[in-house]
């Protein structure tokens, strides 16, 4: 707390609050708007933030339940949103678990062991991590196309391909976990190894239980990144019932047939859990993103 205070402090504090409130309302407006639109009747309804003609039509359709209008006509759900959400979650959980396994074991070696080629490998990972997957989509498509002819569950239009392809993004997580391992004193493991534990046992029974928090963070981080992944999914997945949410959601706003109201309900339904999860875990996620990932 500075000892010297300017005189106009109260006026300035008020000004700061007003400016912040103004800015925050500008930022939050689109999100509130979408929630409001999801409860309005019809696809092009306008009006104030609190809907004048309240209707659950869009929500019912987003949940996959046909909706009967007041005039007796029945509207079928346009897209299988819940299926897309399920696909997204399925892919995200499996790929995050795999990424976690791969990243943890390599981070252990990078943090604790001395071996040939360690420094160039770590630096190389940092460099390659910056190459966006969009640029090698042609190659990835060709790879999975050919692979699919031999191993059907790894072909185009399978979730297997999408999961396996996401393994290329381990570098970021290796750096995060490595940073955490290095902050743990190695003497515990050494003591265990003096008592006859193998390297693997020291890792599995001493270090891993100590690192549960960072493993949770990396899992959540990988999960969120996988849910948001768009370019690879847009090329690898074809059938409507195979799509993930990130690819499917844009169909609501196709150029010729915009279903604004239906989109709003689907967006809130699928976006809210992810947003809430992010906010709950924000401290760890942000720590991971700003510390491990971007340090280099």
């Amino acid at each position, binding site marked *: 707390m500075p000892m010297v205070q300017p005189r106009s402090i109260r006026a300035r504090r008020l000004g700061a609050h007003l400016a912040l409130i103004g800015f925050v309302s500008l930022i939050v407006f689109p999100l509130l708007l979408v929630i409001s639109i999801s409860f309005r009747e019809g696809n092009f309804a306008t009006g104030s933030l609190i809907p004048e003609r309240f209707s659950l039509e869009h929500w019912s359709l987003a949940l996959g339940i046909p909706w009967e209008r007041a005039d007796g006509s029945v509207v079928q759900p346009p897209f299988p949103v819940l299926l897309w959400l399920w696909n997204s979650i399925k892919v995200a959980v499996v790929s995050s678990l795999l990424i976690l396994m791969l990243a943890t*074991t*390599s981070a252990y070696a990078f943090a604790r062991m001395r071996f040939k080629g360690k420094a160039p490998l*770590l630096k190389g990972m940092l460099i390659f991590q910056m190459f966006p997957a969009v640029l090698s989509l042609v190659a990835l498509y060709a790879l999975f196309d050919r692979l699919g002819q031999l191993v059907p569950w790894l072909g185009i239009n399978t979730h297997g391909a999408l999961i396996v392809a996401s393994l290329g993004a381990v570098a970021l997580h290796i750096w995060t976990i490595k940073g955490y391992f290095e902050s743990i004193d190695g003497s515990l493991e050494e003591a265990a190894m003096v008592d006859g534990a193998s390297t693997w046992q020291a890792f599995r029974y001493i270090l891993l239980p100590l690192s549960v928090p960072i493993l949770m963070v990396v899992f959540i981080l990988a999960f969120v990144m996988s849910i948001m992944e768009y370019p690879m999914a847009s090329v690898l997945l074809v059938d409507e019932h195979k799509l993930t949410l990130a690819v499917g959601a844009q169909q609501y706003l196709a150029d010729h047939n915009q279903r604004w109201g239906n989109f709003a309900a689907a967006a809130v339904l699928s976006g809210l859990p992810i947003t809430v999860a992010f906010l709950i875990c924000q401290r760890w996620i942000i720590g991971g993103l700003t510390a491990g990932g971007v340090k280099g």
Partner: protein
Amino acid sequence: MYTTNASRGLPRHRSRHVTERYTRWAMRGLVAALVLTLMWLVLAFHLNGQWMFALLFLVLGASLAVVFTKRTLMSHRYIFPAVAGLGVFVIFPLLYTIGISFSNYSSSNLLSEDRVRAQLLARTYQEEGASFTFQVLRDGEEVRLKLESDGEIALEGEADAEMEAALEGASRFISEPLDLDDDASRRIEIAPLHQALDAEPLEMREVIAARDALQALRLVTPEGLELRMAGLRHFAPMLDRYEARDDGSLYDRRDDRVLTPDRDTGFFVGDDGQRITPGWPVAVGLDNYTRIFADPDIRGPFMQIFVWTFAFAGLTVLFTLVVGFVLASLLQWDQLRGKAIYRTLLILPYAVPAFISILIFKGMFNQHFGEVNMILDGVFGIRPEWFTDPWLARSMLLIVNTWLGYPYMLLLCMGLIQSIPRDLYEASAVDGGGPLTNMLTITLPLIIKPLTPLLIAAFAFNFNNFVLIALLTGGNPDILGASTPAGTTDLLVSYTYRIAFQDAGQDFGLAAAIATLIFLLVAGMSLLNLRLSKVKV
């Protein structure tokens, strides 16, 4: 920091626990199975003639076998799976893309030469000289086809003489009984018909209904000539159009010409210079790169997109930094209450999945019924055309991207500002410095240095911000006069994506060449980043 016993060549640690020895054997079995699977893939790819993929899996399998058998590589076993993932899904695609950039791989040059040849040899044509009118006769439960020749059979050429002979004497045929509910392709024998039949022909309406089944039929005369449906009333003989010759060329029976494979362009070319599609991919050297810089229809849009990409990434970093920095300075102010609430609300754009918020903006900026234009119309009486005017579309992208990106900068700045010693502000207050002076002469200079590598990373990220472009504008409005799909709001990545995956002329070679140029730019940026941030390994 230690070296594993095995890597030092120390004696093997033999476990006293039986279960652990079993686990070891299980691990060995797993590795062996994996190596065998990979070798099977190598063989399969090799037999298919896809040597790039065979090589990839050979390297993978061999390194797996080496790392998991040599005891001195014990430490490498821990990193092998991750490095393999990186190799197969990042480095290999990168090298493969660079390889494609030196070829003319595209939707017209897609299959291998053998497959193209096989496809051409399977092509047929209808001989115009002969055709048969058909009727579908129903006799009780049985359905048969009756064919009647249309007048004299008059064919030209030597190949047709034998056909003529085959049809000689028989002008009417009758098929075996068949099932019109079955759409599967099959061959049906037909025999010459001598006596009249008294069965009811189906009406045209019913014939049309059974069209799919009829089209799948291959009628074979006793002499082995094959007839196919050639219209709603006719069946006609279909002949193989191309005939393979020993020197690798093809003879075109219908147009009486010779097609020779041209291995420079990857097409079969006729005597008259006409190219037959499809072709196969061949190496074209630096052609794709010279096209980018020499072909005016590509160079113009490419340069425009190139400049816009840099402007977009630079302006995004600038805007998000300014907004984030100002907000962070405000939130660090000791006198302010309710910081936690402000902070949570301010990072909300970061928490909402980007693909959802981008689509929300797409709806809001809609020119006809979007909320943005409705408010602007109500207040100022204007309705800007956000999606059809290039400059408005670009401004919209920057607005949306600033909304999406400032929370990251806010978080970074807040973290860095916390490490600034408080007494600096104290001294400033004694000297009568206001908040603006503090911000510009104390805070900014002190955080800009640790911030620089992060700014470069943010620049590189936005340089390749494909999702924003793909979901918001799709690159539109288009650049006029471009020979490839190119838009005024396209970034280099989305431009590459569109060349490769949009519309008919999927030009993978050109897309890969541009991708290679972007690889070089990104590599430069990340090297710079590595140097500035002085990463400790």
